[in-house]
């Protein structure tokens, strides 16, 4: 294993797509100015069944926001609508101050889905999957270069999978596959990480390593938006919690105080095998 590398440094300017310093977008309202993500009165419905009912949210640079909520509360739908994977029935989303429909600088966002895609019979190596994370920066037509290979190697080292680079992803454990997806997002050196249940089904050693990586990312000015049903070792990194309940935001602010046993000092919040519907983070509610 190579020594720990800090891959959360922003990409050197001019390495690939230069990051515009002063974006000349149309005049914007006060709400979007300086924000990383805003959602204004977002409504999402699947077949006329409302999932989000007028949600408003603003995330500023450097924040680490956890979206919490029970299963089916709409928390995954919220981040999927922010990314444009689910269309809004009403309302508006902006990313880095730009309306989502016109947003093109996707390299600034690193997305970690809940699990590896359904997959197929064709094998793919860990390095091949992680290399996909460079496409947002490189574009479709440019072949991968030295910068890309270095970024892939660093991302793999950061999640502790450098020695598995040539192995087929199908042979990895669930925790290792999740780490592969995180490496894929990190390989693009994003400014905003969006993670959908990043620690679900991940062994606690991976969770701790992941919390450490996240802390480094935040220290270097990164912004994080993650969905979780339980924070575990991430609790110390989270700066703000948004609780979604039945399609609306029930709480927005400090991470809800855990009660009972969870409040004991030194309790490390590791529940790698807690059931999905366990007593919640927020006040022992089932």
């Amino acid at each position: 294993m190579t020594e720990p590398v800090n891959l959360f440094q922003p990409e050197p300017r001019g390495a690939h797509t230069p990051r515009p310093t002063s974006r000349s977008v149309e005049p914007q309202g006060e709400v979007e100015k300086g924000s990383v993500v805003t959602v204004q009165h977002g409504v999402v419905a699947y077949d006329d069944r409302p999932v989000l009912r007028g949600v408003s949210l603003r995330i500023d640079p450097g924040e680490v926001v956890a979206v919490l909520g029970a299963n089916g509360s709409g928390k995954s739908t919220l981040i999927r609508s922010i990314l444009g994977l689910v269309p809004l029935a009403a309302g508006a989303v902006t990313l880095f101050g730009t309306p989502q429909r016109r947003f093109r600088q996707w390299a600034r966002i690193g997305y970690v889905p809940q699990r590896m895609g359904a997959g197929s019979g064709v094998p793919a190596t860990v390095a091949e999957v992680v290399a996909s994370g460079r496409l947002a920066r490189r574009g479709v037509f440019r072949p991968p270069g030295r910068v890309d290979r270095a970024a892939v190697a660093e991302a793999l080292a950061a999640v502790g999978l450098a020695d598995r680079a040539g192995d087929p992803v199908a042979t990895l454990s669930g925790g290792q596959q999740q780490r592969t997806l995180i490496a894929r997002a990190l390989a693009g050196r994003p400014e905003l990480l969006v993670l959908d249940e990043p620690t679900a089904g991940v062994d606690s050693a991976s969770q701790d390593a992941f919390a450490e990586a996240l802390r480094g990312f935040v220290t270097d000015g990164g912004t994080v938006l993650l969905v979780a049903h339980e924070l575990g070792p991430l609790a110390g990194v989270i700066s703000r919690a948004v609780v979604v309940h039945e399609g609306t935001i029930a709480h927005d602010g400090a991470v809800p105080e855990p009660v009972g046993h969870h409040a004991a000092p030194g309790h490390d919040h590791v529940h790698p095998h807690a059931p999905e519907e366990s007593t919640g983070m927020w006040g022992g509610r089932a």
Partner: protein
Amino acid sequence: MSLFQYDFMIRALVGALVIGLAAPALGVYLVQRRMSLIGDGVGHVALTGVGVGLLLDQSPVLTAVIVAAVAAVAIELIRERGRTSGDVALAMLFYGGIAGGVMLVGLSGSRSNANLMAYLFGSLTTTSPEDLVVIVVLAAVVLTTMVALRPALFAICHDEEYARVSGLPVRALNLLLAVTTAVTVTIAMRAVGLLLISALMVVPVATAQLVTRGFLGTMLAAMGLGLLASGSGVWLAGTANTALGATIVILAIALFLVVSVGVAVRRALARRRAVPGPEPHVEPCDVVLDSARRTTPDAAPTAGPVPVDLETPHRTAVRR
């Protein structure tokens, strides 16, 4: 070898080789996104294009490319919606395509039966030098596109949502794959025939992935196998005087069977030879089984120091 003293055999060999190389290069993406039979469907519809061409006295290859491309784009748009009714819509397209083709070819004149067989099952030996140029040029275009755009095409086939969040032109790339499928089907129509095209796209990939570990490896191995099957197919068909398309497909399937058996034998031998070596590094278990913890609370079966909380009342072993 006297077989290749005839120009038409040389042309058949060149045509078969370029198609044997290009079809699996496209097929690896189709297999990856579980659309192995799309080539078959587009092939059915291409027959309508052949019928249109014969009826209008135009080049059947040209009209087949156009009709197949329109059909492939339609199939892609139906797939994109992801509705279950798409399945039925595809069936309509396939059977409508082949029925329309048979009717139109029948309307076009007396020599239709031989023609129909040539398009359904291939007739590379009747390829003219002009046809061969078209086949080689289009195959080169398909091959270049599939190799040059591999990272992007791999990304959309492996995880379409992630590709979308990466800002890739997902729809354009999907349509590119669809049109490329139509082009490949139409040029391969002369070699293996519309009903056997899918085999040349899918079987070499299926064979390659028995032994490969990565996507690029699978792609290259499949192209090699396609080359081998089509090259030896031309030789065998010429020697044994069998139908060329069918011979190529049978050889490709024979290769698959040989490799399958080889892999199975190797595994069996490895298992027999296996001796208990040093303990392999095992990824820490996602769950700690209750029974295991009750008996050995201090020795959690993990590699690192894992904080285990024995007092939490609601802990259960959950398989994810």
